[in-house]
């Protein structure tokens, strides 16, 4: 099961991370966005090539009002 921002998805193993990001309505050059896969930062340069494994938690984050 691939979990995207806390929601279970029907994404399958081998899906490019880029697909998950685009599923959230973001383009890959969206500014102010960062991605963590299983609690580790995944640099933007790897978004295209990285493929998701079977059990993966993906967090796609951006700036929100705060502090």
């Amino acid at each position, binding site marked *: 099961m691939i979990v995207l*921002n806390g929601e279970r998805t029907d994404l399958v193993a081998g899906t490019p991370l880029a697909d998950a990001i685009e599923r959230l*309505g973001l383009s890959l050059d969206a500014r102010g*966005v960062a991605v*963590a896969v299983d609690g580790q930062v995944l640099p933007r340069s790897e978004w295209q090539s990285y493929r998701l494994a079977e059990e993966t938690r993906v967090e*796609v*984050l951006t700036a*929100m009002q*705060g502090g």
Partner: protein
Amino acid sequence: MELSTATAREPLTIAGRELRSRLLLGTGGFQSLELLSEAIAASATELVTVALRRVDPGAHGSLVDVLERAGVELLPNTAGCHTARDAVVTARLAREAFGTNWIKLEVIGDEDTLLPDAPELLRAAEELLADGFVVLPYTTDDPVLARRLADLGCAAVMPLGSPIGSGMGIRNPYNISLIREAVDVPVVLDAGVGTASDVTLAMELGCDAVMVASAISRAADPVRMAGAMRAAVDAGRLAAGAGRIPRRRYARASSPIEGRAALD
């Protein structure tokens, strides 16, 4: 506004970055991005904090775009983190998202008071400093902890006046003045400000800057309060440099005794 004496206008330098405004603004709590923009303009701030949260596909407008148009620099925070590990990963994500190695480090130890967790805060600061971050830690009003953070290499310390969003002002002015004496890095009062006089007091106690969020964003008229906070920073800084009179137990006449008319 013409309060432009050299003292009030001397820029603040944190980690080599010069800030003309000594007011840092938190972006949380504003009802709209339009209101936030207006408050930024009224406050004249140059540095604003943002949090890092999950992308909301239904969000209206981009906070990053609004802040860029306003001409302010971003200071990402680690709000909501309860462990050093959480805070360190969040800081790295913020660096990736916003292209800045500055981080306002918050590690919370209690849900009700949102007070910092001192051991976790020190651990996170140490790790982030080793990773090349410019660390501005949100800390308690404990002078010893502030000194430990400064000794590690933090670029500033951000002691609380009272709990975040409480509006209780500065609960322990004595400790804030001790922190000013204890560290050589800038002291930025953070959290607890309720109104303009709290900001002025912070500056009078020797703080180099003040960070305000809720006191502006949740005020009945946030834009007017932003202007008040701007004036309050200047008033406090001017007064701190001017040297207040000592407190006395009894009155001291300000009109001369000699030369009074005999009217009895």
